[in-house]
């Protein structure tokens, strides 16, 4: 029985088209469930987002009690004319930059360190990093908030104990910079492990011989790190950078929880939280959608870079 199967399947197809067509049909079957979900929950909402951003879409319109009024680009004009939008945009970029640079610096440094130390300290570091990575954003936000709490926080207590009496009931979440700084620390804490694991895998991929020959040539430790290891890690570093940019631009939970919805008088708004507040707290769905479109455009242009970097390292 197997013998007959042998002959039928071993015979190469006379023309390429039947195999291609059969593959196409099977592929359609395999891809259908994912495609339905992606079209329904990603592509269609994206189209709707753009559409809503062109309308005066408020509470009455959302409830279906008032007819929709087409505004064209008015929502965008309102946005671009408002100082608040530019301030929020600048804060978003600044905040994301600090988080990206921070997690890359910490993650890469610790990856290099981990590759130079013995197994037990390395394992401890990896366990700690996995713990930080596994902590849900909500839980992480609360712990950091508690550590820096004005009245019951450990940090103020320690600072006061070191002689900084003014710090004993200092509010870290009140000021714009200290609140953003606190959130940034939490974000870096939970996102550097991804960078570290990625870079560590990359370093392990570099052959020992290369490093040894560099050392034999008299290169110092720092010289090896900057002139040998770093250039070889560049493709991985690029991917980690762009992934971090994309994550940190979209931080929502941490900002929302740690600054109680965007800080005192909206001082700690980022685009994400701003769009959410305009839409769901202010019932300005059209304006919120316009902010969402702006954010999408920014992130998709970063995607352009990502696709290009992937094209070099991954064959499509």
């Amino acid at each position: 029985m197997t013998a007959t199967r042998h002959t039928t399947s071993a015979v190469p197809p006379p023309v390429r088209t039947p195999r291609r067509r059969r593959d196409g049909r099977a592929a359609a079957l395999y891809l259908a469930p994912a495609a339905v979900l992606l079209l329904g929950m990603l592509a269609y909402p994206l189209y709707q987002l753009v559409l809503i951003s062109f309308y005066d879409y408020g509470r009455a319109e959302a409830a279906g009690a008032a007819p929709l009024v087409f505004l064209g680009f008015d929502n965008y004009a309102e946005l671009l004319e408002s100082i608040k939008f530019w301030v929020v945009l600048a804060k978003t970029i600044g905040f994301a930059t600090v988080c990206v640079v921070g997690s890359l610096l910490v993650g890469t440094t610790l990856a290099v360190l981990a590759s130079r130390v013995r197994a037990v300290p390395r394992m401890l570091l990896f366990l700690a990093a996995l713990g930080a990575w596994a902590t849900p954003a909500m839980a992480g936000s609360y712990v950091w908030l508690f550590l820096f709490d004005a009245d019951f926080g450990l940090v103020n207590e320690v600072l006061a104990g070191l002689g900084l009496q003014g710090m004993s009931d200092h509010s870290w979440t009140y000021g714009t910079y200290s609140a953003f700084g606190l959130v940034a620390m939490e974000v870096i804490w939970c996102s550097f492990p991804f960078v570290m694991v990625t870079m560590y895998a990359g370093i392990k991929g570099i052959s020992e011989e290369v490093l040894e020959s560099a050392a034999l040539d008299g290169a110092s430790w720092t010289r090896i790190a900057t002139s040998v290891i770093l250039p070889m890690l560049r493709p991985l570093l690029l991917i980690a950078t762009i992934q971090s940019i994309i994550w940190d631009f979209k931080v929502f939970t941490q900002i929302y929880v740690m600054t109680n919805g965007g800080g005192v008088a909206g001082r700690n708004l980022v685009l994400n939280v701003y769009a959410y507040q305009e839409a769901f707290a202010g019932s300005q769905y059209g304006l919120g959608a316009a902010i969402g479109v702006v954010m999408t455009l920014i992130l998709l242009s970063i995607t352009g870079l990502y696709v290009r970097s992937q094209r070099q390292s991954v064959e499509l």
Partner: protein
Amino acid sequence: MVAEVVTVVIAGIVAFPLYWMVLSALKPASEVQSANPRPWTFSPTFENFERVLDSAGFARYFLNSTIVAVVVVGLSLLLSFLSAVALTRFRFRGRTVLLVMLLVAQMVPVEALTIPLFFLMRSIGDVAPAFGLNELGSLVLVHLAFQLPLAIWMLRGFVAAVPIELEEAAKLDGASRFRFTWQILFPLVLPGLVAVSVLAFIHAWNDFLFAKTFIISKSENQTLPQAILVYFKPEENDWGAIMAGSTLMTIPVLIFFVLVQRRLVSGLSGAVKG
């Protein structure tokens, strides 16, 4: 030796917030809300955990989060595996275009889609009540969709790494494509599946935004993040309860991470290498 000491100290700093979370959850209320917090406690107690677990619906929220996360993990494994097989093993027109679209889809800021998705879920509720607003089904749908592009992209590398000769050999032995896919390919891409399941689990388990937006008037369908928010009040935070709730929320993810730790690292690096 210096590097070793530095590493251990850094590990301690990184782990400290977790230690503080568990410690504060175990402290009696008077010690948690103390102006002179101590880095240890002489009288550990489970009263914070008891208060949280006794409170209205915490167990229910825990169950809701678990249901959503488990269903999302299961379905995203199945769907992303099927798609990854199709995109690596089958030759058909438009394959490259699909791959690029999946890459781009990963970058769409899903948070920005909250507004249209809210209206979409409202309409879905009219047709299929289990997937509409206020239902767990709506959360499953969004998390699944947002997880798929990355999951497919990651698994692709693993499927591609299985030599084509293996498939030809299986075919010669009379195995159908279906059998080959499930009995040979599926076990071989296990590290990739583990990495995908971890990412999907964390994503669904951590979600605060969509639960906040979609589950508005049916509190018994809330998930964990909202449950902890209850103890967070501007003037009188119950830090003991918040830390106990946060600990309970972190434990399942930690267990999951520890279980798959080795495979996760190889899975992620495999995916990054493509």
